[in-house]
């Protein structure tokens, strides 16, 4: 049971991070470049999960995608997709919940690049797409890595939002953080301890690797 919940946690974190990378990178680029007046509103929405209690987010998702809601019924009728008390629901909630952890570092990475870099590429006849993939992305690698690792780590640490929308179904929505809570409730302290220790070591290793890699790339630029 321990391994099942750990595997579920890793699977959730991997899928969430992958989706967030695909969604978050263009969003971060747009936020860093836009002159739109609506920018503060979008930035606020992206940052909301940072301060909003996870239970609030979970509650609204539960309401929005439950069987009694229009969206929930529509998704179930036409796509057979149930977002409440299911793994796909966890993925959706995690993507929203970890969005700022992917977008913020990448956005500041893009903003720190001199504007002339982009303009020089355009003046050499390169399209916006080529410039984005050949010039912008390769020059913010440390920021991309930070975004990926923080989103991954943050998804592993989720509890409230997962509990609200996913519940506690073994093999489907019972991720490690919830399993620990469950084991403690059942007074199985040794199982809770094993899981907690693994999560502790995992989180430490992930964050340490970010700092090591970023310090190294910093040194390379200074040299």
């Amino acid at each position, binding site marked *: 049971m321990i391994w099942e919940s750990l595997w579920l946690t890793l699977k959730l974190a991997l899928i969430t991070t992958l989706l967030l990378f695909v969604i978050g990178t263009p969003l971060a680029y747009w936020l860093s470049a836009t002159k739109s007046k609506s920018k503060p509103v979008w930035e606020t929405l992206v940052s909301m999960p940072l301060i909003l209690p996870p239970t609030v987010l979970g509650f609204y998702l539960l309401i929005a995608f439950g069987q009694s809601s229009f969206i929930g019924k529509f998704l179930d009728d036409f796509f057979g997709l149930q977002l409440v008390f299911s793994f796909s629901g966890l993925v959706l909630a995690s993507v929203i919940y970890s969005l700022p952890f992917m977008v913020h570092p990448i956005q500041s990475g893009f903003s720190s690049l001199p504007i002339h870099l982009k303009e*020089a590429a*355009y*003046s*050499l*006849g390169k399209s916006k797409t080529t410039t984005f993939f050949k*010039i912008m992305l390769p020059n913010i690698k440390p920021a991309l890595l930070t975004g990926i690792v923080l989103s991954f780590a943050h998804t592993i640490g989720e509890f409230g939002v997962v509990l609200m929308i996913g519940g506690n179904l073994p093999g489907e929505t019972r991720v490690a953080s919830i399993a620990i809570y469950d084991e403690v409730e059942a007074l199985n302290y040794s199982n809770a301890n094993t899981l907690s220790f693994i999560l502790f070591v995992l989180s430490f290793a992930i964050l340490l690797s970010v700092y090591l890699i970023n310090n190294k790339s910093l040194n390379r630029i200074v040299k």
Partner: protein
Amino acid sequence: MIECKLKKELSAAEGKMILNVDFRLNEGDFIVLYGNSGAGKTSILRMLSGLLSPEDGYINQDSNVWFNAEKKIDLPIQKREIGLVFQNYALFPNMNIEENIYFSLPQKKDKKTAEELIELMELGNLRKQKIQQLSGGQQQRVALARALARKPKLLLLDEPLSALDHGMRTRLQEYILKLHKTYNLTTILVSHDPAEIIKMADKVMVLENGKITKTGPPISIFSENKLSGKFQFTGEVLAKIDEEVISILHILIGNNVIKSVSAKDEIAHIQKGDKVLVASKAFNPIVTKIE
């Protein structure tokens, strides 16, 4: 040939300003835009390159229309075939020298011009180096080579040398002139340095508050026609030594330091570090061949 008429409201440090200019460049011209910061020099370059859209006017390059407000034509920068060089080099940090230069080639095949430029800019030994390891002068040589590798007709240089020290600047000026002549470019340089301008430009356009107030050969612009010298040079005052009634100026002209004696009050306004014009009209210079 490039003909343009540009109009745009710009927000400068002292509030709003209308940029309104009208000029024509012939093929092979070396033009310098001169003026105070905020006069609109960089904005003109950005409009020519397509990074900034004028509100009104047109830009025609030979028979191509780059911009026309009436016909709503605004060719994107990618299609204007210009070379653009910035003060801060703007090299791509994720590529080495060679990759930076090759990056500008349309297809991978035609490396001839790129190789020629690497040769001309004397970058052959450095080609695999990371750009972080280069000096400012070397970086700007790479930027010049990169800007010209896809053979643009118009080269736009936005204060490319102002971050470099004096010696490096002189050498880079030579490189730029060499490129200008080799590829028969039309070049526009933004510069603040009269010595540099006199050395390089065919024609100077003086910009004040968004308008071109003077146009002409650099010597006549900077000497303001007060002298009709038989020979004249520009230099920089290295030192001014005051004696009883006279002052001795030590002036750097090219690589030579000359001393000049003047009455004290005549040159009271000249200080160390000033750019000066040195001319003689009373004497016939003696010219002998150096062995």
